[in-house]
């Protein structure tokens, strides 16, 4: 296959599937849905991975770049590409959607609509990770919203309308911040030149004053960068979500059906971290340099706050949702670890953040799946009304226990690597944040084990519908086992992920460092001139 | 010219006050007519007199005043006022038929 077309195929195959599902009879909707998702997964792994490693990166470290004219008047191009930052997330997306689709197998209400929206969502997510053009990115970023709204709103729990609109409002507010920032940068990047550009790669060059060709010498002033950075950060903090923008998450999770929760936690939150790495930092390095410490601090606050709030929850799903807030805090922590003097630690922070995203993608998917399995059977999520599941559903509980350990950051499981690496990386940059994050592991253990104790341990299940507590079906076991196996594999040998991210992260950090350095020199120069003038 | 402008301004004020204070729809419409007439006065005046206080450096003579345009405009205003009045009366009649009154204050049923 033409490697360039591969990315387009990955992005739009689910959309095609969505159209097909919408037109097909309801009975076969799930077959088409699952088939499409599986095909997409195969594309992201069996086809994309070899192609990725064969391809040679371009000047900006991107591979398999597809570039086509789209909207001439705005200089919008249809540009897709993949690098080490997006590749792990793309693969994760394929996987989580596959597992989630398998979890959705028994959705009986309006299956056609469900599967169409489901597939559309996948297009949005994959496209967001692969887009290199800001306009395309934004469009696909927003394409995620509507399906999510309906998936929560139509197939959700009793309070779904509230949760859905809350999710939508928060995210839309964020995405408009993003839009404003993007348009500002778009305008600023074209000032003095004929054409503004939406190309992330070019814009990032321009932002650090390293534009080439017709953009040579164009820079984006510090004020614009600062404003744009905070706007973009705001968007992604909401998406991530970081305290205090996180309150949409527990509601959305609690009301969303299980597969949607899996996707939301497993993939959608990662868009936040990805956006910071891909947009907020490279497009506004000067603003970012000033704000990195706050990112770090917000990460620490999220970790502690999320964990504390999780500790107070009695709803299983809400607890897991807050644990997501806490765990995504480590992503922020890593992302905020700008150690200018020690670029290696800086790189470690970014790599750790990406790894944490992947790791959390697996553990949170698993945890939400675990909740869903229970909810399917006994139709409640009250932690205090479980118990004894290790006895009643041993396989389920064992896997659930394993997943909980992965989530609380036990070495050998995937949660640990991300947490440890981000804390290590954050230490030189911001010891207090790192220390706070380290203390977060106590709280994490606290609420996780408290949950484990009340749900899995104990003598007997104490809630209603005891007779429904059947063993895991083969399908459920397979989903859970795959997640667990991945958690172990990545925990024991995380190198593959780091190896993939390293060149991209290295390049990113180097360019950011250059930008900050160049700015400092410029300022020094100005000071000297000012001094001379005096 | 100034005199005409003052007259038209007075007419305008009367029209607006009439629109704002008359309870009867027909009265309100008469206010509108007054306003339009104020405009007509201006047009006719403008046709007759050049633009005041403009340091005229424009080449062509006919550009100084509005000329015939003003008078035609006044005519059009009259015509349109008539057309509008016709439509307005029809609507007021319909309203009267439904509400039994031409009191504009009765038109307060549409609320969000």
């Amino acid at each position: 296959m033409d490697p360039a077309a591969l990315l387009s195929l990955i992005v739009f195959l689910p959309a095609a599937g969505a159209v097909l599902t919408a037109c097909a009879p309801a009975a076969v909707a799930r077959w088409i849905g699952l088939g499409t998702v599986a095909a997409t997964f195969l594309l992201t792994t069996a086809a994309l991975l070899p192609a990725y490693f064969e391809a040679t990166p371009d000047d900006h470290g991107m591979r398999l770049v597809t570039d086509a004219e789209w909207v001439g008047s705005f200089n919008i191009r249809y540009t897709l590409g993949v690098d080490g930052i997006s590749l792990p997330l793309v693969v994760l997306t394929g996987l989580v959607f596959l597992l989630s689709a398998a979890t959705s197998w028994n959705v009986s209400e309006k299956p056609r609509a469900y599967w169409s929206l489901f597939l559309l969502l996948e297009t949005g997510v994959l496209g967001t990770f692969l887009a290199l053009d800001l306009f395309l990115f934004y469009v696909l970023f927003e394409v995620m919203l509507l399906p999510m709204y309906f998936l929560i709103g139509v197939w959700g729990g009793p309070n779904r309308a509230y949760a859905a609109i809350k999710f939508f409002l928060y995210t839309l507010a964020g995405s408009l911040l993003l839009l404003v920032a993007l348009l500002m940068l778009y305008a600023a990047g074209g000032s003095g030149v004929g054409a503004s550009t939406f190309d992330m790669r070019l814009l990032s060059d321009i932002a650090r004053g390293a534009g080439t060709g017709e953009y040579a010498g164009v820079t984006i002033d510090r004020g614009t960068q600062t404003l744009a950075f905070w706007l973009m950060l705001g968007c992604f903090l909401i998406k991530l979500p970081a305290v205090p923008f996180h309150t949409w998450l527990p509601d959305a999770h609690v009301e969303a059906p299980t597969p949607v929760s899996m996707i939301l936690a497993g993939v959608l939150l990662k868009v936040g971290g990805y956006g910071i790495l891909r947009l907020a930092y490279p497009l506004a390095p000067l603003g970012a340099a000033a704000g990195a410490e706050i990112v770090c601090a917000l990460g620490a606050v999220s970790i502690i706050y999320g964990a504390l709030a999780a500790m107070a929850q009695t709803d299983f799903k809400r607890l897991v949702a807050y644990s997501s807030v806490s765990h995504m805090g480590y992503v922020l922590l890593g992302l905020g670890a700008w150690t200018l003097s020690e670029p290696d630690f800086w790189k470690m922070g970014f790599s750790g953040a990406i790894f944490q995203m992947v790791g959390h993608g697996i553990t949170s998917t698993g945890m939400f799946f675990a909740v869903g399995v229970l909810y399917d059977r006994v139709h409640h999520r009250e932690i205090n009304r479980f118990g004894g599941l290790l006895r009643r559903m041993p396989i389920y509980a064992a896997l659930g226990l394993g997943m909980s350990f992965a989530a609380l950051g036990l070495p050998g499981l995937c949660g640990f690597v991300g947490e440890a690496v981000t804390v290590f990386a954050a230490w030189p940059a911001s010891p207090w944040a790192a220390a706070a994050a380290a203390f977060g592991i106590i709280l994490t253990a606290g609420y996780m084990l408290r949950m484990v104790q009340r749900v899995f341990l104990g003598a007997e299940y104490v809630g209603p519908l005891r007779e429904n507590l059947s063993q895991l079906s083969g399908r459920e076991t397979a989903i859970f086992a795959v997640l667990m196996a991945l958690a172990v594999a990545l925990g024991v040998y995380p190198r593959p992920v780091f190896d993939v991210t390293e060149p991209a992260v290295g390049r990113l950090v180097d360019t950011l460092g250059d930008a900050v350095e160049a700015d400092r020199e410029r300022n020094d120069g100005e000071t000297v001139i000012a001094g001379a003038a005096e | 010219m100034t005199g005409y402008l003052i007259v038209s301004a007075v007419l305008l004020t009367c029209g607006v006050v009439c629109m704002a204070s008359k309870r009867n729809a027909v009265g309100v419409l008469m206010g509108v007519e007054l306003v339009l007439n104020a405009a007509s006065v201006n047009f006719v005046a403008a046709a007759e007199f050049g633009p005041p206080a403009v340091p005229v450096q424009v080449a062509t003579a006919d550009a100084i005043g509005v000329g015939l345009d003003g008078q035609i405009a006044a005519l059009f205003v009259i015509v349109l006022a008539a057309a509008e009045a016709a439509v307005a009366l029809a609507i007021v009649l319909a309203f009267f038929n439904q509400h039994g009154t031409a009191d504009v204050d009765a038109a307060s049923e549409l609320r969000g």
Partner: protein
Amino acid sequence: MSVPALLIAATFLPLVGALAGLTARWWRPRKDDRAAGFVASACILGSFGLALTAALRWDGPEPIAGSWYEIFSLAGVTLELGHHIDSLTLTMFCLVSLVASCVCVFALGYLSDELTHEHRDHSFEEELVRPGRFHLFFGYLCLFVTAMLLLVIGGNLFHVFVGWELVGACSYLLIGFYYERPIAGAAATKAFVVNRIGDAGFLIGLAALLAANGDVRFVSLFEAAGAGELSRTALLIGGFGVLAGCVGKSAQFPLQVWLPDAMAGPTPVSALVHSATMVAGGVYLIGRMTPALPGEVLLTVAYLGCATALIGAAPALFQTDLKGILAYSSISQLGYMMLALGVTGWGAGLFHLVTHAFFKSLMFLCAGSVIVACHHAQDVTKLGGLMRKMPVTAGAMLVGVIAISGLAIPGVTLFGEALSFSGFHSKDAILSHALAFTEANPAHAILFWVPLVTAGLTALYMVRLWGLTFAGTPGSATKGAHESPAVMLAPILILAGLAAFCAIGGDGGPLYGFLTRTAPEVGTFALFESPTEAAVDEAHHHAEMMGLIAAGLGAAAGLALFGPWRRAPGHARAEGLKDAAVVRWLRSGWGFDAVYRALAVRPTLLAGEVAALTDRSALDGAVHGTATLARRVARFERSVDERLVDGVVRGVGRLARGFGRLFGATQSGGLRQYVAALAACAVGLAVLAVVLLAG
């Protein structure tokens, strides 16, 4: 095979057993099948064999360091798994695998009541019937052994941390083995969380050292620390961080509270995990890190150890639970080890680690034997007089008691050696180091006197334990008790032999010699003066005498109170101390649990509630408030259309009304306000425009 290869094989061999145990429900679905146990025992024994081979093959004091694979690496920062093999590693390997072998074999017998589909758990009011979990236990056990060996083999701090957490998790699983019992689940959770408090510190220390050094390999850390390349801040944070981890893992003050509760696990677990190996991990790590620890940290270690020794010993005096006594005793003994490490008695501390592992696991296994015999009764007040029913166990226990008390018969020599068991030698080494240290630093005299007193207390509570259990008239729970089967006795006897004779020769013997082959050199510190070797040797004699006197006094008191000649059953003999408030206080472990609950647990939970409440009320409230506000404004806005124009154009309205009065008509109403608003706005805007543009 090279030494590292042997040890790596030894590390991962038990993993086979773990897999076998965890998957036995599929390949051995029958419940009355010990296959998993046999596989596990074989694996761990094989592990021991490999470790022993490696120890014999190892030639020389030079440590062997190596890297397995990198978790994360860049030019300036490396996180990896790798090994660091020296005499300490090898000793620990042999120790862990040997004790584990014994425990594993013992457990084959101890857990035989799990070999059924209808295991009855008597700890519930209504008897709980559940399928047995024989296989699972061995799975966990092997998993633990792997994790422990992984910890011990670790060539860098990160690797150690990995093992550190893994043993914690295995400990969680093992404590929670009887997860149906609420107490077991709670104890497991408590153990893990308390450990995590220390681990958080560990993580911070790790971060500080990693940031300072770029990697955390022991070799390079020691080199850098020795060469003064690491900043003092990094060393201090690193040192205290690591210490925090060790305090948690080794149940040192102030994090000792989890260990007594951890006795909720099966007794073999207590023997292996919570006395011999895992809890010794903290001591091991302090020992391992000694070359990179600054004086402040060492002194803190000494004082914490000193405090812990006493804090552990006192409650042990009043415990009525067989395993509870042993647990507090473990805390106390671990304090000894820490103390020794702190007063630069590197060899002494680790020496005691080894001997303690043997005699304490011996005692736990004996206790297990008693517990099985007495149908899971472990309250010493209900025991008594078991000497006759279980002579072998009693004898073995006695060996342990003598060993831990550090009793010896001075003057009588056997093979040119004072007639004594292992504990005597190691405790003697510790005391002499402490004495030498206090002589060199008189300000720290307490570091000698407290352990000395504690030595007496140790003898006292141990004799009490033995006396209440085995001597006297039979207690209420001893009906039908009989000696345990050979599968349980064999490991007990092996361990008894080791507890008695492993330390033969004292600090001149082979064990000490091997252990200290790669001993770090005693550094010089600004804070205190390290005693010279000569001073230690000199102190030896005094310390030996004083230690013996203290132990002898304690033992004598114990014999007097609880000796075999006291015929009353245990409960009667223990009764005198039952109800005093101070006794209750001490028995509950100085009330630490209550204090922590009030000062740490409650506030944290409260903070959690506050956070959740903040979410609900403040953050969500703000959002909702905005929404409500918007809705209000909207309603307001809507009424603008119909009514508020009245207000907005009140001025115009008044004007109009004025004119209206003039014309004899005063009204107010909707539509006209529209028009008035229109006119007002038009005029107003015009005026505004003129002002702005022309003014």
